[in-house]
């Protein structure tokens, strides 16, 4: 045998063999990671008032459709908080921190509304019924088993973080048709077994925990968002005898031009420049963004309104853990700009026709066009998020010929006679519910059909001009949007804050008397 082979080959074989033997022994001796889930039976006093499912299995998170992949509760020690993720994913964390997803559980409006609903059914299933809301707003709390009359599990930092990193990045299945939080979360696999430094060299285990193939495939689809953006009430969560649709954002999108052209929720709402993307779509250019961000820019301008000062922190439920107040304000300021731009890109108004003659009944037609949103305008929980049209018609002397759609900035009320697009919740006695008392809702209707994607709603105003009217006549139309009724703020939040409206778009025109255009 050659000297080199004999000498170095032997060293190579010996070092390889001994290392392999040590590694194999170590792998057998060192225990693998333990099963992290907590059995339902191990959570004392946990109530299951809704019984078992059709297969006879427990439904620990019902009436929310959220569930864990192994059917077990999560262990509070093992749910990673977003504040842990920020150590490496600073950019994603800061994008997310400014979003509504980060505060979906801690936002004061939601928090008080939950208490309000829970109190309403305190004597019966109130604390457990709240799982319906928490399944989407604070899923970590539900899967920890803390949404219960007697809370017997330890808290976790993650439970106040709303829709935090771990919820989306461990989801493996979503049911877009059923909604009501129909997400399956592999939460009990979501633990890193490696030290952060070692993850840097070998991210495979990290990917196993937070980037499973099923997860990565799911989170890019609109169906994923639908799990929570489709909402139905039935007798288990409301006073409605049958199932009623409350949120239809996904099905609105599904029927739209956007779905047909493969423009997903993520393409707009996780776009680094959402408004720019909408403008691009208006030009007919359908191109996926190069990068997706975690800002989830939407329509809630109130929760980014930095002009509210300390009230904003109150509304947002304080500062997100892992972030300084200064930086938090900076990212919210950026989110505010993006939110305003996106809202401004959604709608357009056109004065389609106007005929006003002295001493005659005239007609002004205003078209409200949904030009930028991939869903109805407004969408979501539209008993609170609503839109109305203001029309102001004056003659040359400044005399008002018509004015509807006013807003009283002191009382926080808008003209009840204005043309409004909103959902109305009704109780069993036929009284309108204006403070989102979901558990008391018996029926829902719309004041006017919501404006579909790339659709329009033409509003006709009959206006009588006096005989001495002087031209030219000026017509101004404004489309307003508001994220909450004042009743909710007064009755539930019990705060002296007026929810300001947001001007989506406006249009104005002048025309001589007696002419039609």
């Amino acid at each position, binding site marked *: 045998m050659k000297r080199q082979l004999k000498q170095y080959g032997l*060293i*190579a074989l010996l070092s390889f063999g001994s290392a392999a033997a040590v590694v194999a022994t170590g792998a057998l001796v060192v225990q693998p*990671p333990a099963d992290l889930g907590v059995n339902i039976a191990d959570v004392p006093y946990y109530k299951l008032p809704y019984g078992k499912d059709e297969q006879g299995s427990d439904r620990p998170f019902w009436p929310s459709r959220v569930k864990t992949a192994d059917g077990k509760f999560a262990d509070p020690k093992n749910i990673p908080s977003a504040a842990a993720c920020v*150590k490496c994913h600073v950019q994603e964390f800061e994008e997310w921190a400014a979003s509504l997803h980060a505060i979906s559980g801690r936002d004061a409006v939601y928090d008080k509304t939950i208490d309000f609903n829970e109190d309403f059914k305190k004597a019966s299933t109130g604390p457990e019924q709240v799982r319906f809301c928490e399944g989407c707003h604070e899923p970590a709390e539900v899967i920890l088993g803390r949404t219960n009359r007697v809370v017997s599990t330890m808290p976790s930092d993650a439970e106040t973080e709303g829709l935090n990193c771990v919820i989306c990045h461990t989801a493996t299945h979503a049911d877009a048709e059923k909604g009501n939080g129909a997400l399956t979360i592999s939460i009990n696999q979501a633990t890193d*077994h490696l030290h952060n430094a070692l993850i840097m*060299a070998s991210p495979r*285990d990290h990917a196993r925990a937070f980037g499973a193939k099923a997860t990565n495939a799911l989170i890019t689809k609109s169906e994923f968002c639908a799990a929570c953006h489709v909402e139905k009430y039935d007798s288990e969560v409301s006073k409605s005898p049958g199932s009623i649709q409350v949120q239809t954002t996904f099905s609105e999108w599904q029927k739209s031009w956007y779905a047909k052209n493969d423009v997903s929720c993520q393409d707009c709402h996780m776009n680094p420049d959402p408004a720019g993307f909408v403008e691009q779509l208006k030009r007919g250019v359908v191109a996926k963004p190069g990068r997706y961000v975690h800002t989830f820019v939407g329509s809630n301008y109130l929760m980014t309104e930095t002009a509210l000062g300390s009230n904003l922190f109150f509304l947002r439920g304080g500062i997100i853990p892992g972030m300084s107040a200064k930086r938090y304000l900076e990212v919210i300021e950026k989110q505010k700009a993006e939110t305003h731009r996106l809202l401004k890109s959604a709608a357009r108004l056109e004065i389609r026709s106007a005929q006003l003659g002295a001493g005659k009944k005239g007609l002004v037609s205003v078209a409200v066009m949904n030009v930028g949103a991939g869903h109805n305008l407004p969408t979501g929980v539209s008993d609170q998020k609503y839109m109305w049209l203001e029309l102001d018609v004056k003659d040359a002397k400044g005399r008002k010929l018509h004015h509807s759609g006013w807003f009283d900035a002191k009382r926080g009320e808008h003209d009840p006679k204005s043309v409004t697009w909103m959902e109305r919740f009704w109780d069993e006695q036929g009284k309108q519910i204006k403070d989102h008392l979901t558990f008391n809702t018996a029926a829902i209707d719309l004041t006017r059909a919501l404006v579909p994607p790339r659709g329009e709603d033409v509003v006709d105003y009959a206006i009588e001009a006096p005989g001495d009217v002087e031209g030219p006549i000026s017509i101004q139309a404004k489309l307003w949007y508001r994220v909450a009724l004042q009743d909710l703020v007064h009755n539930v939040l019990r705060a002296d804050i007026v929810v300001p409206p947001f001007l989506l778009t406006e249009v104005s025109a002048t025309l001589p008397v007696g002419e039609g255009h």
Partner: protein
Amino acid sequence: LQERREQHVTDALIEPTKRIQGAAFERPDVRRRRWSWLAKGTTASLGISLATGLHLYFFAPFNWNAGQIVLGVHLAAGLLATALFVAWQIEHMTKGLRLARSRAFLVVSWLYFALYVVLLTSGVAIAAPFLLYLAGFVWFYKFETTDLIAKLHLYLAVTTTVCFFAHLLMPHWPKKRNLP
């Protein structure tokens, strides 16, 4: 006897070329010992790296508690192997190139060397985010990039192991009858 014969051939080769000057011949044992220590250290650390690396790729996902320790050993052995390899090659190349007479041996050896450089570079590239993290900087590749480099690293590790034995098996120097 074989070793002595080979040593004789080596000396016979060196003598007529006159390329290695006096100092090398004055203290041949010292040079050989240092060379030998680097070569053996490199070989041993690469052997450990190969065993731990194969475990990481194929078996660690079944038990990351053990895998974590193996990963630490792999990184340490890999970085040590890189340092030793560089130091050893400086000596091995300067001397070995002058000694080698077979064209086929040179081609295989250069190929082997190139593969080793890529293997170790890919290893250092994988370790870079880890080292940076330890130094207080957070930077990492996209997952897909790390995955691609890791696959390349694996394939190269297997290929270079084959080349390693081929290199050792091939006649390094011309046969005795061809000597001048």
